[in-house]
């Protein structure tokens, strides 16, 4: 009867309407650093910066939070970008020789980046042959002249074409061929050789008719476009890489492929000039690599800057990624950890100013953006307010904490601020600074970083480093000291991207944070579980270490994996911030697979592939250890090696398969074409029976009890509920394993004395209450207890501090167990199945991530529903009602091939989620119709006609899907004070970004973000291979 009614619900128009008010799918923002950047541009007038990527994405950044994103239709590399100054338009050149004009257009108060027009260079060889014109194939450089109305395109063939920018049409008849230039070159220089491709085009700041042209062969020409004649000619003989025209026009700097740069006087001497005034090889005398780009910036002090990339001695430092900054006698070689893409300086561009006076140098690297303050002595690095690389060490796990109390927020921010003044010493320990609401991201190097995810730009708040507690093999000090010994070239390590982890055992696997008590658990790869507490003052203290044998007395197993980390003994100094209180070491030291914290009870539970344990960190005593290994499971004990082995094996098999299929393919080609044709015909007729190559097969076999890895603990959960009888509720702990077992323990937690923080000295006790073996044996992904109203229980302290509605203890509780294959709700205390949904049986997909989320209606202010959001291995997101477990909506979210994206997904409590779209970027998506975080930015631009005031501002909002005004999330948007924003709207400049601490996610409701495992499993890989 009931089921019949539920079934009908799908067609119920009222329910359908409600669903539309509750659920909507949007991909909203991309957080993080663009993956594989390939081009950089800066508009000094609007002070906005653009980054293009190899996948054809265009991203424009203004003041923190102002972001525009566009994507070219073809996934071609963006090779060059040029802003039309002050217009909010950008011209991009792709590596398929097409030009695209993008503009920021305003729609109902919100601006978007849109492609206006594009131009595809006619590249047919016959096109030019007939007309006798040089070919427009292979554009090498683009220069905007005449305030962006016209563009000059240099080509591989050595000719320069002119293009009308607003319409992107070729200006016929203005083309400048190499022959025309060659006419003014002396014969002995010409000697029958071509000039080569146009390497560089530079405009004159004050005289738009003049263009400086640099040819690959080394010839530099100052061309007067109005008079159509060469004004000056410099006969360079070294292969040219780039040129820079000093702002007065008196000096020209050229950089060359042999690592030298030359300075030419443009106003004195006779034309053609044969010799530069100065030619130096800064890192000579041994052969050097090319200087790819050189900039010359003048200062009022008379000591100009020369900034160039590359040019390192080929043999000794040829593999370094360097930018050198030279001012008078001061030379600093900025040593980066990733490839230099491009750089620019922020300087005066007003023609009437006499000097450049560079303020900052921004360097775009493959993995990060680094900004140096050129006005402060020592040229310190400026922490950029955004584009902070999320991935400075590989991300191993992510968690999102919503509704962070303002007090904790402020404390984390202040801890972060105390970190930031530290000099950027070791690359690995670069302190990120500033901040707001965390997703926590934990990293392979044993750090946990707190990021503010409330706004559009993800901001680093605080970085916690756990490595200091342990003795590791390689200490940082050594490598630093060595670096310091080399004084030539004067290397300086800059940037925070450090892909190399010191000790993989330090890697953080799981984190849990109690936002009311500021206590946190960090669990790592070597079975270490660290309980930390936020402290506002530095302290020196000894950390108590306890170890817990999860095997108990299981005999016959040996651990062949890594050893445990040895903690440093004795009192250790800890800076303000999270300071360790207790360390629990699981034995064997397998990676921790699940962790949960209950600060109210002072308990932390953790699980590995061998079992789980419960630890009372107030009394520093272990409470429980339970082995989850199947008696016949010997593989799991061997440590991570067994898993690697099996992966290796399966990889080998798949390679063999590929090779085999290639081999058989070859055989077929050897046979005559006639035979082939006949075969093909036969194949078509015979249908499915004729596949020659053994096709991919899948074995149909249910899970057996003794699968390896069956003992892996997948989730742990604390709840105050009815486990033993319906009359008394009490603390319980739940654990779910990879083989579909659920263990429930009743806990005896001595009640705290009223008002007192300390618990009496009685020990916590744990008694096994229930054991559930799911018949389908699929891994248990999440467990949650629902109260009498079918809502998830609030988090610890939420109810007692009146932050959430108290759970209904009258009605019968129920436990929701989500496995990889199905969801099931069981009644409590008698565990009998109430509702269920067999997702895999229905859809053939498996559950990867699950979370309970509260969805608020857009139509009705206070109507909310708690639903189960689930991400499958196919990358689809499904939403189910709770506790009815009826499917509500589903959306395609991630490509199913994107394993790491699926593995990295995290849901928030209000129906949003994050996943990695590249190693460096998080995509944020929203399932809720009401709770959306997306950039609603505007950029006031001066169009060629109608000059307006330049201002850019940000207003990230919780907006409704239909565009009606929502709740403003971050009040730092500039409604009250627009002026500071427009001043600070420049990208990397402001050393102190304006941040106002705010709690995010305005909706108030209690729910639980279930723990999800971020591990990539062998199955994932199989999914990908198959």
């Amino acid at each position: 009867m009931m089921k019949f009614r539920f079934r009908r619900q799908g067609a119920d128009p009222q329910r359908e309407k409600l669903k539309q008010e509750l659920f909507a799918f949007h991909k909203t923002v991309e957080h993080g650093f663009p993956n594989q950047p390939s081009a950089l541009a800066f508009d000094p007038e609007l002070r906005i910066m653009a980054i293009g990527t190899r996948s054809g994405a265009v991203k424009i950044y203004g003041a923190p939070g102002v972001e525009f994103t566009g994507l070219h239709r073809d996934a071609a590399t963006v090779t060059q970008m040029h802003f039309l100054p002050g217009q909010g338009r950008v011209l991009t050149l792709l590596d398929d020789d097409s030009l695209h004009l993008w503009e920021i257009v305003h729609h109902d108060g919100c601006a978007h980046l849109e492609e206006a027009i594009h131009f595809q260079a006619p590249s047919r060889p016959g096109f030019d042959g007939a007309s006798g014109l040089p070919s427009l194939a292979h554009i090498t450089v683009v220069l905007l002249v005449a305030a962006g109305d016209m563009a000059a395109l240099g080509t591989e063939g050595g000719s320069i074409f002119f293009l009308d920018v607003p319409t992107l049409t070729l200006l016929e008849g203005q083309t400048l061929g190499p022959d025309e230039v060659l006419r003014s070159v002396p014969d002995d220089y010409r000697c029958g050789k071509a000039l080569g491709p146009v390497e560089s085009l530079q405009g004159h700041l004050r005289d738009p008719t003049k263009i400086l042209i640099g040819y690959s062969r080394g010839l530099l020409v100052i061309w007067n476009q109005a008079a159509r004649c060469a004004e000056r000619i410099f006969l360079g003989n070294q292969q040219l890489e780039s040129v820079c025209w000093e702002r007065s026009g008196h000096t020209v700097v050229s950089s060359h492929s042999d690592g030298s740069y030359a300075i030419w006087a443009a106003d004195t001497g006779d034309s053609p000039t044969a010799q530069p005034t100065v030619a130096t090889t800064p890192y000579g005398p041994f052969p050097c690599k090319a200087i790819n780009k050189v900039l010359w910036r003048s200062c009022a002090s008379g000591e100009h800057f020369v900034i160039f990339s590359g040019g390192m001695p080929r043999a000794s430092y040829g593999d370094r990624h360097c930018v050198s900054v030279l001012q008078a006698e001061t030379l600093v070689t900025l040593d980066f950890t990733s490839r230099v893409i491009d750089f620019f300086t922020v300087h005066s561009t007003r023609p009437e100013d006499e000097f450049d006076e560079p303020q900052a140098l921004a360097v775009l690297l493959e993995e990060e953006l680094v900004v140096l303050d050129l006005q402060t002595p020592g040229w310190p690095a400026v922490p950029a307010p955004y584009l902070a690389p999320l991935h400075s060490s590989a991300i191993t796990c992510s968690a999102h904490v919503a509704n962070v109390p303002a007090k904790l927020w402020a404390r984390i921010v202040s801890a972060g601020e105390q970190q930031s003044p530290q000099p950027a010493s070791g690359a690995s320990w670069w302190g990120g600074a500033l901040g707001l609401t965390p997703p926590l991201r934990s990293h392979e190097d044993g750090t946990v970083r707190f990021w503010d995810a409330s706004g559009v730009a993800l901001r680093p708040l605080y970085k916690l480093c756990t490595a200091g507690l342990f003795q590791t093999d390689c200490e940082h000090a050594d490598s630093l000291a060595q670096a310091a010994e080399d004084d030539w070239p004067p290397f300086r390590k800059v940037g925070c991207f450090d892909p190399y982890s010191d000790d993989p055992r330090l890697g953080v696997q799981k984190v849990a944070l109690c936002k009311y008590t500021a206590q946190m658990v960090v669990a790592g790869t070597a079975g270490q579980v660290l309980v930390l507490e936020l402290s506002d003052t530095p302290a020196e203290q000894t950390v108590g270490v306890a170890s817990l044998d999860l095997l108990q007395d299981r005999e016959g197993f040996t651990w062949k994996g890594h050893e445990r980390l040895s903690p440093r003994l004795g009192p250790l100094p800890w800076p303000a911030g999270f300071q360790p209180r207790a360390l629990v070491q699981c034995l064997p030291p397998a990676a921790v697979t699940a962790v949960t914290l209950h600060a109210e009870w002072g308990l932390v539970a953790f699980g590995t592939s061998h079992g789980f344990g419960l630890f009372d960190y107030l009394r520093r005593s272990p409470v429980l250890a339970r082995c989850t290994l199947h008696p016949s499971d010997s593989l799991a004990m061997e440590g991570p090696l067994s898993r690697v082995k099996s992966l290796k094996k399966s990889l080998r098999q798949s390679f063999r398969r590929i090779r085999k299929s290639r081999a058989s393919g070859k055989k077929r080609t050897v046979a005559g074409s006639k035979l082939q044709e006949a075969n093909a015909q036969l194949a078509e007729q015979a249908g499915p029976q004729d596949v020659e190559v053994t096709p991919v097969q899948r074995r149909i076999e249910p899970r057996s009890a003794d699968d390896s890895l069956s003992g892996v603990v997948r989730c742990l959960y604390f709840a105050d509920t009815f486990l033993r009888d319906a009359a008394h509720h009490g603390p319980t702990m739940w654990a779910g394993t990879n083989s579909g077992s659920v263990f429930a323990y009743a806990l005896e937690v001595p009640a705290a004395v009223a008002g007192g923080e300390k618990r009496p000295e009685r020990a916590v006790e744990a008694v096994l209450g229930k054991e559930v073996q799911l018949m389908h044996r699929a891994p248990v992904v999440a467990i949650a207890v629902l109260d009498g109203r079918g809502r998830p229980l609030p988090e610890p302290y939420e109810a007692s501090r009146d932050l959430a509605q108290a759970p209904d203890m009258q009605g019968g509780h129920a436990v929701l167990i989500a496995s990889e294959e199905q969801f099931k709700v069981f009644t409590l205390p008698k565990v009998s199945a109430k509702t269920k949904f067999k997702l895999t049986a229905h859809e053939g997909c498996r559950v990867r991530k699950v979370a309970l989320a509260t969805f608020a209606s857009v139509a009705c202010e206070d109507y909310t529903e708690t639903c189960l959001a689930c991400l499958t291995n196919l990358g689809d997101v499904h939403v189910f009602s709770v506790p009815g477990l009826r499917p509500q909506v589903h959306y395609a979210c991630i490509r199913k091939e994107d394993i790491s994206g699926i593995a990295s997904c995290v849901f928030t409590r209000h129906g949003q989620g994050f996943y990695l779209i590249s190693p460096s970027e998080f995509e944020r998506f929203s399932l809720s119709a009401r709770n959306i975080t997306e950039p609603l930015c505007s950029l006031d631009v001066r169009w060629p006609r109608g000059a307006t005031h330049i201002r850019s501002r940000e207003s990230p909002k919780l907006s409704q899907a239909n565009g009606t005004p929502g709740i403003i999330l971050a009040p730092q948007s500039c409604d009250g004070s627009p002026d500071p924003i427009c001043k600070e709207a420049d990208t990397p400049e402001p050393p102190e970004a304006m941040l106002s601490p705010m709690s995010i996610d305005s909706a108030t409701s209690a729910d639980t973000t279930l723990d999800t495992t971020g591990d990539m499993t062998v199955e994932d890989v199989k999914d990908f291979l198959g």
Partner: protein
Amino acid sequence: MNRGHRHGAGSGCLGTMEVKSKFGAEFRRFSLERSKPGKFEEFYGLLQHVHKIPNVDVLVGYADIHGDLLPINNDDNYHKAVSTANPLLRIFIQKKEEADYSAFGTDTLIKKKNVLTNVLRPDNHRKKPHIVISLPQDFRPVSSIIDVDILPETHRRVRLYKYGTEKPLGFYIRDGASVRVTPHGLEKVPGIFISRLVPGGLAQSTGLLAVNDEVLEVNGIEVSGKSLDQVTDMMIANSRNLIITVRPANQRNNVVRNSRTSGSSGQSTDTSLPSCAPPPEPSLEPGEDDSDDDEDIVIEDSGEPRQIPRAAPSAESLQSLTQVELSFESGQNGFIPANEVSLPPVASGAGTEFETRAPDQKLLEEDGTVITL
């Protein structure tokens, strides 16, 4: 011919039937009244009597008209044996302890006797491995063809009962292409096919699935548009009660029904026009009512607080739990006989008591059991 005629004339008019019973190397001949064969128990006693083996447990079999050796172990098959015997009922008796169960079944006697069934079954010459059939009283379904009345005759819906057997399901599936009739003519569409049967597996032993059969539905859900991995996961998720609708590659063995034009079985006339797909039987709808196939095991603690003061001393109580776990491990494949549950080792926990609280009909179901500890 001569003998048959004689007996037909002799005993037929009297309403009696000749019985020739073989035990070991000995034969006994006696007669029964065809109209009043009596009960199996009496017949069993009679056989023991005539062979003078009163206290020996034996298996009784008879040769049916096709020459198959079939068991007689209840009144029904005894009556069947008597009614079909023509003219002679040939009985084979084996001692239970040395019984060769593989002797029973189809074609078992053909090797010895070339009966004219060859004419009726042209394909029975192909080699078939011995099929092991367990004791008759342990019979339970391992597979069935269902929904024959609502499916097009070119399709076959097979139910495989995985539980209670040690046999693997034993088949593989692959991607392939299938030809469909569409409004635009013949069209090739991707499909899922059975690619391999594991020898000795459940799928092979049923004889209902074959290599290159196209899989159309899994537990009532169409597989078209789903990837191989999805279908694999669906099948595994349903593996305890797997219902596969296939289009057999070999269409010759189809059931010919009266409602349809006969003899069309060779053509794939149906080739799945959407309208052809019958509405799935209610029982097939997953999630609808499948409580019978998916009962999870719940072990409950008695609720008496057992002392687990800290990790190290808790070993003993954990040990007891381990034993409890082991005790149901034996029955984890589903059916847990009541007597087995009621006597698990009570190890250390003084307050632990076992009792079966599950209702009887639950226990009789072959999969899930609720045990209270």
